């Protein structure tokens, strides 16, 4: 394969509870203040709904909007913003060859249909047959298309015309890390010139509150930063969409595109999350890039999830680096497949602006270096799996 090439991030689309777009995110985060969580809709659990979007700007056909559920609409919207930010929206020549890797979870169920069936089935003495008949008559035929993970990518092809290739990775936080890693590796090796990579998630829905509550504590009562949620830890499910346009430096320069940042490296790892394993993995990932890190001008954007003991283990390793740290999930919640990509987007903004928002909680430390920020190290320590570390650099 050809020698490794430089990989630039040339466009970002970001949607979360904080806002939409990098600048709005940064302005709001820099201003400080209480996170925009919702403690009513799924009480007693706290969630982070996305800000309202003017969908028509990115998904002009109402018919397209109707064929999607919220997670897809958020993702297709964010993807459109990223393409526009990179200056390639509607550029058929580039989009025809553009590759795409999406990290996606499952689509939402029709909770009203589920609840009605569960209520009514108790009057039936043939439970399975009753469910069959009700599903056949009550499910919207197109709901399936809003449930299939690969239909986020399918909708991006349809709405935005990205058709070079289309791959969808699954598996919570890890899938976002691997999507970025594979996209980076393919461009660096000359297997792709330009890749749209991203993820979207809508955790503000009952079927996912149910799924996660079955196995993981969700934050309830008083809001607390991710670092300080007690020995059991807790998540705050969120709605989030994050897309990045990544391309080879050559490809970007040829079309006159300016980089938001350089993506220097991406690592992903796996461990079984036995006590101390997240700490060990993260330390190994930091060691692997130690020689590239500029100690006086690097910062850490942490993907700490609030799950324990992983979050405490991460806090320990990050403190050892001596670098300034900010955890974003305190502000944007847990967006699973989209989380790492959202943090990459925020890392781009940190190196562009040279600033860091105010700390929140015991693991947020330090402040932006006076001489500016040359590098952002973005971690992923997912709520269950999903270990990763990326290095983003300012392009001077």
């Amino acid at each position: 394969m050809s020698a490794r090439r430089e990989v630039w991030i040339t466009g970002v689309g970001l949607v979360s509870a904080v806002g939409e777009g990098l600048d709005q995110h940064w302005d709001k985060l820099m201003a400080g203040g209480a996170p925009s969580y919702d403690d009513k809709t799924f009480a007693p659990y706290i969630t982070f709904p996305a800000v309202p979007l003017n969908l028509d700007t990115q998904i002009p056909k109402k018919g397209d909007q109707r064929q999607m559920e919220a997670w897809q609409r958020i993702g297709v919207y964010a993807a459109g913003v990223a393409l526009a930010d990179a200056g390639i929206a509607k550029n058929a020549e580039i989009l025809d060859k553009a590759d795409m890797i999406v990290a996606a979870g499952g689509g939402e169920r029709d909770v009203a249909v589920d609840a009605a069936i569960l209520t009514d089935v108790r009057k039936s003495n043939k439970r399975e047959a009753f469910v069959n008949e009700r599903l056949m008559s009550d499910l919207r035929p197109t709901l399936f298309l809003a449930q299939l993970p690969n239909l986020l990518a399918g909708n991006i092809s349809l709405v935005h015309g990205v058709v070079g290739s289309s791959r969808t990775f699954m598996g919570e936080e890890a899938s976002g890390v691997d999507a970025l890693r594979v996209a980076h590796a393919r461009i660096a090796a000359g297997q792709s010139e330009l890749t749209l990579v991203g993820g979207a998630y809508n955790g503000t829905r009952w079927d996912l509150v149910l799924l996660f509550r079955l196995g993981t504590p969700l934050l309830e009562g008083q809001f607390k930063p991710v670092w300080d949620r007690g020995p059991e830890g807790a998540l705050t499910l969120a709605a989030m969409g994050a897309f990045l346009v990544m391309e080879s430096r050559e490809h970007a320069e040829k079309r006159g595109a300016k980089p938001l940042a350089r993506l220097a490296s991406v690592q992903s790892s796996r461990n079984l999350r036995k006590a101390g394993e997240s700490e060990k993995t993260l330390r190994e990932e930091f060691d692997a890039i130690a020689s590239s890190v500029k100690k006086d001008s690097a910062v850490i954007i942490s993907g700490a999830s609030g799950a324990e003991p992983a979050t405490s283990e991460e806090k320990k390793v990050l403190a050892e680096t001596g670098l300034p740290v900010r955890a974003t999930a305190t502000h944007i919640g847990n967006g699973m497949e989209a989380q790492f990509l959202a943090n990459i987007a925020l890392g781009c903004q940190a190196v562009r602006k040279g600033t860091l928002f105010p700390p929140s909680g015991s693991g947020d430390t330090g402040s932006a270096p006076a001489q500016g920020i040359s590098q952002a190290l973005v971690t992923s320590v997912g709520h269950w799996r999903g270990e990763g570390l990326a290095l983003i650099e300012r392009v001077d």
Partner: protein
Amino acid sequence: MAASRRDSKGRPVVAVTGMGIVTPLGTGKVDNWKKLTAGESGIRTITRFPTDGLRTTIAGAVDHVFEQGMHSAALSEKLARLAGTEAIAESGIGSKGNFPGPFFLAFPPIEIEWPQRFALANASGANDKIEYGDLVRAATKSEFRSFYEESKYGVVPDNLAEHFGTQGSPISLTTACASGATAIQLGLEAIQRGECDAALAIGADGSITAESVVRFSLLSALSTNNTSPQGASRPFSKNRDGFVLAEGAAALVLENYDHAVARGAKILAIVEGVGEKADNFHRTRSSPDGKPVISCMRNALADAGVTPADVDYINAHGTSTPENDKMEYLGVSTVFGDHLKNIPISSNKSMVGHTLTAAGAIEAVVSALTIINQRIPPTINYAVPDPAIPLDVVPNVARDAKVRRVISNSFGFGGQNTCLVLTGDLA
């Protein structure tokens, strides 16, 4: 040391050194090949769950693998283990529980299923109207913790990574009906980049439930030929009326050719090229001009550095839906032109049904077996040819033939298309 082998693009050559397969026809290459070349059908009346009220009551369920009470995740994982174990044993690579490379798993999206919802509803104590909030209250009970593990996307790939001892973070993926081929493609690319000498690619799907049948029925995608299960999947026939849902798995050990040769491994096939092209026409329908599918096949041939005249056999996507088969004909007739009359094209789905996420991997294994055995499995149930799609579909009976190179097509819902080009060992 021998000079390293490179392909027409200067990339490392990627060999297949191990293969495993499970379909409704049986477990393992020997059994499957025997039945595929005998023209047997694995489609049956569904017995796993009551089918009252369903429009379609037939499927290619892996009843010989299913165990009572298995959730889709557990069945799919078992299928992946069976296929992966066969493939790794054949390749002889690594050691037990230590596969020296990354893992790419094509896997169906899984979720909480109805038996679990019933259990939560019962435990909620709600006696009037049941709402999701009631289920969530019951969810805090530790007895339901397993539901979480059975319904989270990351769990099965992680279990399998642990079982096979693959390296790094396992990648699970979906590109709908092209997923199995995408898993192979990701492994191929990782080896071409020089990241690894070997990769494990598995496609597995054991997700036939009443609700999955309902979902595809509501999209009018399934055959309703319930009275004749074995005759229901009729790719390229005039009276085809939809696909038949099926389950199965296939695994391929992909390996840098030099690495395989150096350790004395048997080369089963070469993955010579892969092509992709997404479709932006419609969520479930292919572009009527066939352009994405045409580009996909052309991309695969170009990636392999070969021309249409170099292809001896097409392993069709061939789902048996009215639309796919027509569109696939348009695609192959455009790409292969006059040469098409010399190329047999058959659909394994006529016998196996449509294994969705697993199909691309299963058909890659069958393509390799076709090259190894120089024998082409038939398209069965071909009684009423469709005059609009004149193809040599290897009707009903297997055929001996000189097969040096195969293109295997996979076209997915959501417009995700992937084609693989396979050949035999390097001359």
